[in-house]
């Protein structure tokens, strides 16, 4: 957990995210041509049957084709057979294009996903790996033959053959193939953030011994490839719910339309006795099988039925373009439903590279003595904080001539919350959280000086991290580690608040520092002096209130919390355990990306909701176009509020609109509805206004316009 450690360097790509090079580039060339071919392939009933709305259209197209060949197939028609054949043929062609357009939408989305997958796969070129056998000899094998647990030797200048963990050696790795970040990253064993390597990256210097952590085809990038390609795409809970809704609507309209001919027959009998047989015949002609199928297709939600899978695939594609690997579509959707976001202070809210700014003595010691103790306490600490403490101490004349071989470095741990050095003469020098150092000194029989608390409070009130430093049983002073809140975060947290998302900052710092940073950054709540266990308990407590929680993490001790969270984003620089537990991996290792992922998830859900609203709202106009034409003979001509020219023109115009609206909405489905950070209520009002009211009004205008263009009289 990065913030519980006062000394965790985070490898974060520099510069604005938009300007960062995301490699490899995705090649979208020829995507529409391939999609066109796929539109015909997808007419296979075994594929169409997976989309209930479009399968009904498919069956309808077959039936209208049969009545085009033989208009009298389902009974003698009252209209002129040639005219009826033209009408039936037109309906068949339009329904066929409706199917093609829906298939095209899906094929374009899949094509973009495949192109994305190809670019990801480009990082996966097979290489020759130097596998270390049990007897220590080295065998050259193809990287595809490597299995989990195998050990491989990687030399400078060669590609890392598979995902793994460094178990021996230190070397700098070029990860630009997956992160787009050109600066090489140092990899070494035994550390949480620097021991994990990804297949397809290149070792620039030295030599590494790597333990392979995944079988071929099971790595993170392989999983993402399968996901964006749609090969292993399973429906998300929201998609399943929407599929049920669409099936229910289709079922209802199927029953309604199937019973219309019987009603029409009854009315026709009634009309023939009251008026004339000709009027009754007109009514029966209007209720022909082809017209009934037109009515059914116009009423069922074909727009959303045709675009549903494209919206889902495009959502995954957007996440991939953001350099985030999602292991399931469910995780992307869960981002959109998140209520609580748990953020580390270090690296996420603040820049993370805290630097020593001042040494504050708390006893009667000279500044040089204090600097010497600080230098000794940090001599084995190679983190940016440790290095900055040494640099400041050297500036103040605190450098000591020490043979490192005679001393022992004490590593920081989240439990002890301190690190330091044991010298050959038996002296124990420690630096760490003030409470931990107080405890250490007391355990050695020492006294805590009175001046420590004012110094500690002073640093905390400045938003800095105070570290106490001691030698054996004597506390010498406080190190002021200066930390800077990232600019623009307050506005982003305000946006999240407006969206109803609560932000909680977790930090290993004391309460005063935590409250100062929390206030400055504008988070809703904070937990100070947090241990790794606190993270999981906060998640459980939020989830027990029915909330969905998102968090980021990189260390092995974050793994249980990442697994517990509804959305767990692991940093690519993190440990294998963290990446296995999370449902997303950020290749840029940028913790603030969690905020953007929530926006992508919400955009996916809003797009699906908006297009569903639009699709269902369209029914009103299509209903008023077709129904009056069927029952015109029954004297309901007044319902023809659009003043459409004729029955044929009305049906064809409604169906043409129904077909054309699908390709017209493909760009919106792929790009997503523009996301605004406003409350759920405001969002609902806005979408009802644009896609609900717009969905009612737009087809009235479009159908009337098409009716005017059509050559029917």
């Amino acid at each position: 957990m990065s913030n519980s450690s006062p000394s965790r360097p985070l490898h974060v790509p520099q510069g604005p995210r938009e300007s960062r090079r995301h490699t490899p580039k995705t090649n979208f060339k020829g995507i529409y041509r391939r999609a066109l071919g796929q539109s015909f392939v997808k007419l296979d009933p075994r594929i169409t049957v997976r989309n209930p709305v479009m399968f009904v259209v498919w069956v309808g197209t077959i039936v209208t084709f049969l009545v085009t060949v033989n208009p009298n197939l389902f009974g003698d028609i009252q209209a002129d057979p040639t005219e009826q054949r033209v009408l039936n043929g037109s309906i068949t062609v339009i329904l066929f294009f409706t199917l093609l357009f829906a298939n095209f939408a899906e094929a374009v989305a899949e094509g973009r996903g495949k192109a994305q997958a190809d670019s990801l796969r480009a990082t996966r070129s097979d290489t020759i790996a130097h596998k270390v056998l049990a007897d220590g000899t080295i065998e050259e094998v193809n990287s595809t033959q490597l299995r989990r647990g195998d050990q491989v030797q990687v030399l400078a200048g060669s590609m890392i053959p598979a995902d793994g963990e460094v178990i021996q050696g230190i070397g700098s790795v070029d990860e630009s193939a997956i992160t787009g970040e050109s600066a090489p990253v140092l990899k070494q064993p035994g550390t949480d953030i620097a021991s994990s390597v990804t297949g397809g990256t290149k070792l620039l210097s030295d030599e590494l011994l790597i333990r392979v952590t995944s079988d071929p085809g099971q790595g993170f990038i392989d999983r993402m490839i399968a996901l964006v390609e749609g090969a292993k795409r399973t429906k998300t809970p929201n998609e399943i719910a929407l599929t049920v809704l669409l099936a229910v609507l289709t079922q209802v309209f199927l029953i309604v339309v199937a019973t219309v001919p019987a009603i029409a027959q009854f009315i026709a009998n009634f009309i023939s006795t009251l008026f004339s047989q000709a009027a009754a015949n007109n009514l029966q002609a209007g209720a022909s099988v082809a017209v009934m199928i037109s009515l059914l297709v116009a009423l069922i939600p074909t727009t959303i039925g045709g675009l549903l899978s494209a919206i889902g695939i495009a959502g995954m594609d957007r996440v991939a373009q953001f350099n985030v690997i999602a292991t399931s579509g469910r995780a992307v959707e869960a981002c959109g439903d998140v209520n609580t976001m748990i953020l580390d202070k270090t690296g996420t809210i603040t820049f993370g590279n805290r630097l020593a700014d001042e040494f504050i003595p708390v006893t009667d010691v000279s500044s040089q003595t204090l600097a010497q103790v600080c230098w000794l306490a940090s001599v084995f600490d190679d983190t940016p904080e440790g290095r900055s403490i040494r640099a400041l101490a050297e500036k103040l004349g605190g450098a000591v001539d020490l043979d490192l071989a005679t001393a022992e470095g004490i590593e920081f741990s989240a439990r002890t919350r301190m690190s330091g050095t044991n010298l050959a003469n038996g002296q124990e020098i420690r630096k760490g959280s003030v409470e931990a150092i107080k405890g250490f000194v007391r355990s050695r029989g020492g006294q805590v000086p009175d001046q420590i608390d004012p110094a500690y409070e002073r640093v905390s009130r400045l938003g800095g991290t105070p570290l106490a430093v001691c030698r054996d049983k004597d506390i010498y002073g406080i190190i002021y580690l200066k930390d800077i809140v990232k600019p623009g975060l307050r506005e982003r947290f305000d946006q999240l608040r407006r969206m109803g998302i609560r932000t909680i900052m977790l930090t290993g710092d004391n309460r005063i520092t935590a409250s100062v940073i929390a206030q400055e950054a504008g988070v809703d709540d904070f937990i100070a002096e947090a241990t790794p266990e606190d993270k999981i308990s906060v998640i459980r407590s939020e989830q027990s209130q029915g909330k969905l929680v998102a968090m980021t993490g990189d260390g092995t001790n974050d793994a249980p919390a990442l697994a517990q969270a509804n959305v767990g984003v692991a940093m690519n620089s993190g440990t294998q355990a963290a990446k296995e537990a999370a449902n997303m991996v950020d290749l840029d290792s940028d913790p603030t990306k969690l905020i953007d992922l929530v926006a992508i998830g919400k955009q996916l859900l809003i797009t699906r909701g908006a297009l569903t609203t639009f699709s269902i709202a369209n029914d009103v106009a299509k209903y008023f176009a077709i129904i009056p034409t069927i029952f015109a003979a029954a004297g309901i001509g007044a319902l023809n509020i659009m003043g459409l020219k004729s029955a044929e023109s009305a049906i064809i115009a409604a169906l043409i609109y129904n077909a054309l609206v699908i390709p017209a909405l493909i760009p919106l489905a792929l790009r997503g509805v523009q996301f605004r950070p406003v409350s759920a209520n405001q969002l609902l009002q806005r979408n009802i206004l644009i896609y609900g009211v717009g969905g009612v009004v737009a087809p009235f205008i479009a159908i009337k316009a098409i009716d005017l263009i059509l050559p029917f009289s």
Partner: protein
Amino acid sequence: MNLPSVLETLQDIWSLQRHRKLPVYLFLAIAFNLILAPLVLAATGNSFSRTQAWAVGLLLITTCALGIYLFFVMFIPEKF
């Protein structure tokens, strides 16, 4: 054709139907239409020819099949 070869052919058909369900469903629909089409013809008097009655019967079966299919989608949507 002797009895063993007939049984062998039937066995082949049976094993094929496990893999190719659509022809089986179509066969069952047409077979069921042998019952339904005369009912349609009887109900409509002389207004329908035998072919039209057969077509209407098949249309009714298709509509019912679509209804059943949609119920399947509602109850096991994750399969679609």
